[in-house]
């Protein structure tokens, strides 16, 4: 029994010792291995993170430099106050004076257009001399002609100014673009004699 017990005790102790030693050595090995692996991974992670930040910094600086360049050059150049009104008093005055001008027979241009329904040689050539010569340098389109009152799909054209510009064709809503200069005088029968100027952008 003693022997048995002693043996068994010895055996047990030696077994425990052996197990502990093996476990300890395994643990140590694992710890050494994990330390080795972690340090390499940590190094790689650090390098990766540094590269990320370096690239991010370069990107931030580039975006900032572009923004500063654009704001200091492009936006600065265009800081001009826009005109107070969309009207053009000089063009409107010329238009009124043209309509009041009389031909050799003493008939006003307004009356000529109203009765004939279109330009004739006298008022057409005079309108070219005035409006094309005076206002084409300030506007993209200079158009004069008879137009319908209100929205209409009818495209009006004449021999002197051609078709009405697409920018102002199509009725009152599109005509009221803030920069377009529109002057018209009623001719009756839902018609107007109209001057349309489309400014350069």
């Amino acid at each position, binding site marked *: 029994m003693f022997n048995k017990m002693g043996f068994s005790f010895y055996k047990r102790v030696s077994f425990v010792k052996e197990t502990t030693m093996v476990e300890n050595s395994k643990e140590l090995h694992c710890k050494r291995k994990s330390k080795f692996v972690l340090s390499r991974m940590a190094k790689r992670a*650090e390098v990766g993170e540094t590269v990320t930040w370096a690239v991010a910094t370069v990107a931030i600086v580039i975006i900032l430099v572009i923004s500063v360049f654009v704001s200091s050059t492009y936006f600065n150049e265009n800081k001009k106050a826009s005109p107070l009104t969309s009207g053009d008093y000089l063009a409107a005055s010329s238009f009124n004076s043209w309509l009041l*001008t009389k031909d050799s027979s003493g008939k006003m241009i307004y009356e000529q257009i109203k009765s004939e329904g279109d330009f004739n040689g006298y008022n057409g050539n005079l309108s070219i001399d005035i409006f094309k010569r*005076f206002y084409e340098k300030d506007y993209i389109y200079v158009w004069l002609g008879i137009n319908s009152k209100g929205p209409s799909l009818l495209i009006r054209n004449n021999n002197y100014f051609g078709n009405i510009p697409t920018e102002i064709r199509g009725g009152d809503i599109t005509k009221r673009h803030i920069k377009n200069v529109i002057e018209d005088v009623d001719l009756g029968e839902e018609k107007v004699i109209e001057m349309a100027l489309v400014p350069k952008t």
Partner: protein
Amino acid sequence: MNTKYKIKNKNGVEILSVYWFAILFIVAAGIVYMVYSFYGQPYDVRETEADALTTLVARCLTDAGYVTDGILLEGVLNEDFKGNFLSNCNLNFDVEDAYGWQDSGQFYLEVNFFNFDSGTSIGEISEGNSGLKSDCGQKGKNLPVCVDRDFYVIDKDNNQYKINVISVVRKTEKNVQ
């Protein structure tokens, strides 16, 4: 081991904080510069001012499509009207007392009257600092702004005229930097 890692990480966090503050400062400085460069520059209102001056002159010279009475006499410019042009048209070229503007005029106005058919001149009015006109047509940021426009007008006898108005505004100090 853990202590070492902790210390190392702590240093990294501190460096990262400094980096973050540096980036924050750079971005903030960039935004401040952009805002200042845009809003710090004054709006150039001289073209609008010259346009307004031209319109005022045209309003003064015309009345419902005809030349205003008293401006032309027998087809030529009335000298009385020319002599009191600024007061007749309610114009005032006075400027604020800044940048020495009162010593040299900041406006120039020239009105030329032509016979429409023949193109011959029938009169000329000029007011203000005539030296400003020499800069018209040249390109440059610090030069005066010129507006040169024409309009057509007739008198009650159906004589046709072309009127050319040249308005020049300097005021570069307040409108351009």
